[in-house]
C-alpha cells in the first residue's frame, strides 16, 4: 500500500457517472479526502453533490474511473461493498429511520445482524450513542412519535453504532424546521471535534465556517472550486461560486 493510500481515506480518480443514457451527472471527479478531514460540499440542486457522496458507499454506482475507500476499490465485488459499508455511516435528508422498529431497535439492528454483536452489548452501545446525541430517554418510542430534529439525531446515532471511519451527511438539516436545525448541527459539530472523517452536503454555511477543513463547490457534475472555508467564503475564485455565494448569503 502506498503512503498516499494510507493518508487518503477516500480517493476519486476521474470518476464519471450517468443516469440513463443522456444525463451525465458526475464528470471527471478527482478528489482526495484525508483521514479525519471534514469536508462540506455545496452547490445548486442537480449539481451531483448527493450522487458523489452516495457513490462512496455504493448507493450509486459509478461507470468510469476509480473510487478507492479505505484502501479498497469499489467494484461489483459484493464482499468489498459489505466491508466498506461497515466503515461508512450515512445520514439522509429524510432520516430514513425504520418506522416499524423502536428507536433502540433501529440502533441495534445492524450491530446485531451485520456485526454479530450479542443483543445486550448492542443495546448498551446503542444507549451510549443515544446519550451522545442527547436523546436516551426516547429509546422505547417509535420514530414517528419523535420530532424531526429528534429523528435526525436518532439517525446520526444509528450510523454511529457501526463505529464508522467515515460519516456521510446528505443534506441532514434540509427537511427540518428552523428551530430544530440547531440541535442537529450541535451534534454534528461535536462529532466533528472527535476526529471522524466527515463529508457533508449542506447549505448551512455557518456550520461550514465552524467545522470544515475544506469546502467543495460543485456545479453541473463537476468540482468547480475547493478551498478552506475562510478563503472560499471571503475570496471565491470562480464566477460561478461568486454568483452562488451571492445568492445564498445575500439575505
Amino acid at each position, binding site marked *: 500500500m502506498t503512503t498516499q493510500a494510507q493518508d487518503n481515506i477516500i480517493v476519486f480518480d476521474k470518476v464519471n457517472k450517468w443516469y440513463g443514457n443522456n444525463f451525465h451527472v458526475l464528470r471527471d471527479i478527482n478528489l482526495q479526502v484525508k483521514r479525519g478531514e471534514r469536508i462540506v460540499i455545496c452547490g445548486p440542486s442537480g449539481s451531483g453533490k448527493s450522487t458523489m457522496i452516495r457513490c462512496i*458507499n*455504493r*448507493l450509486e454506482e459509478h461507470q468510469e474511473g476509480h473510487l478507492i475507500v479505505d484502501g479498497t476499490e469499489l467494484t461489483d465485488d459484493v464482499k468489498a461493498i*459489505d466491508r466498506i*459499508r*461497515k466503515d*461508512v*455511516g*450515512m445520514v*439522509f435528508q*429524510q432520516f*430514513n*429511520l*425504520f*418506522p*416499524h*422498529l*423502536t428507536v433502540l431497535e433501529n440502533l441495534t*439492528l*445492524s450491530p446485531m*445482524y*451485520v456485526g454479530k454483536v450479542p443483543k445486550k452489548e448492542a443495546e448498551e452501545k446503542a444507549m451510549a450513542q443515544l446519550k451522545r446525541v442527547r436523546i436516551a430517554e426516547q429509546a422505547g418510542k*417509535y*420514530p*414517528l*412519535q419523535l420530532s424531526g430534529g429528534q429523528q435526525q439525531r436518532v439517525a446520526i446515532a*444509528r*450510523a454511529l453504532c*457501526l463505529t464508522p471511519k467515515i460519516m456521510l451527511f446528505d443534506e441532514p438539516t434540509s427537511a427540518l424546521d428552523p428551530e430544530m436545525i440547531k440541535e442537529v448541527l450541535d451534534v454534528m459539530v461535536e462529532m466533528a471535534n472527535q476526529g471522524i472523517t466527515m463529508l457533508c452536503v449542506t447549505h448551512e454555511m455557518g456550520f461550514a465556517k465552524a467545522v470544515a477543513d475544506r469546502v467543495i463547490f460543485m456545479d453541473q457534475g463537476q468540482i468547480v472550486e475547493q478551498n478552506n472555508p475562510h478563503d472560499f467564503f471571503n475570496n471565491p475564485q470562480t464566477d460561478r461560486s461568486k454568483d452562488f455565494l451571492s445568492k445564498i448569503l445575500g439575505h
Partner: protein
Amino acid sequence: MAETIIFQSLPPRPAPVKTEGLVPWIRTNLFGSWQSTLTTLIVGGLLLYFLPKFLNWAVFTATTVANADACRADGVGACWGVIKEKYRLILFGRYPFDEQWRPLVATLLMVALVVASCTRVFWNKWLAVLWIVVIAIYFVLMSGGYFSLTTVTTDRWGGLPLTIMLTTISLVLAFPLALLVALGRRSQLPAIRTFCTIYVELVRGVPLISVLFMASFMFPLFMPQGLTIDVLIRALAGITLFAAAYMAEVIRGGLQAMPKGQTEAAASLGLSYWQTQFKIILPQALAMVVPGIMNNFISLFKDTSLVSIVSMYELTGSLGLALNSDADWRPYKLEGYLFIVAIYFAFCFAMSRYSLWIEKQVNKSKLR
C-alpha cells in the same frame, strides 16, 4: 428599549363533549339531511316489507321435525328438519358413518392449531413443529391404516373437514410462495424476474376450475407409468399455486409502496438483501396490505368449493351429495344452502375480524 413581554400559553382543555343518547344519534345520522331522510325511509320500508315475510318463513311457520311429510304439509315454511336428518352427510360427506369421529377430532385439532397460530402467545419457534405434528395427526386420523384404524381412501374424505384442510394447508403453503414470487418480480436478476412474471400471468389468466381440471385429469397423463399422485395432493397443489399468484400481486403492491429510502438506509447499514427484505421491507409492506391479503385468504376459503368439480365433496359438494340422492329431501335444498351459508359466514367473519385486530397490531408504531 421596551420591556420584553413574557409569552404565556393558554392551559389546554378537553375537547367538547359530543351529544350522546339515542334520539340525537338518530336525528344526526338517520335524518340529518333530506337525502339521508329519504334513504332511511326507503331502506326502512324495504325492511318492513321483506323482514316479516322472511321471519314468517324461517321461524314462525317453519318446522324442525325430521320428517319429509310434515314439511310437505300446507302452510309450512322452512323445513329445518332436513338439516337434522342430513347434517352428518353434509358435514362429513362420504366418510364412513361409524368412523366420523376421526374427521371431527382431526378438524377440531386443525382449527385449534389455526386459532393458536393467530394468538401472540404462540408466536415462537415451536409453532412450526406444532404445525408439522398436527398435520401429521390429521392425515393419520383421516386416512387410517395405523393404530388399528381402518383405511379410508381420500376419495371418501369430504365435507367441512376437507374444506378446512384444503384451505389451511394451501394457505400456509401459498403465503411463503407468494412472498418469494413478489420479491422475485422485483428482482435485479432478469431470469428470476421473467420466471415469476410468467408464472403470475399464466395462473391469473385461467380460471381456478381449469387449473383443478388440469391437476386432476391432464397431469396424470404426463406422469411416468406406474407413478400416481393422489388427486387430493394434486388439487392442493393446484389451489396453492393459484392462490399464491394472486397473493403475490397483493404483496407486490405493498412492496411498490415502500419508499426507496428504507432500502437505502438498510444498505448503508450493511444489511444483506435477505436481511433487508425480512427485517425492514416485508414487515412494513405486509402491514400495508393486510386487508388485501385477508381478501385472498377469504376467497381461498370459499374457492375450495370448486374442488367438487373434480369429484371431491367438500362442504358445498357434500350438500349436493346429501340432497340430490334423496328424492324425499331434494326440494329442501334452500334450507341446506342456508345452513352451509351460515357455516361459511361464521368462518369468513372470524377471519375478517381477526384481520382488523392484526391491522391494529401492526399500526401500533404509527400511533402518536
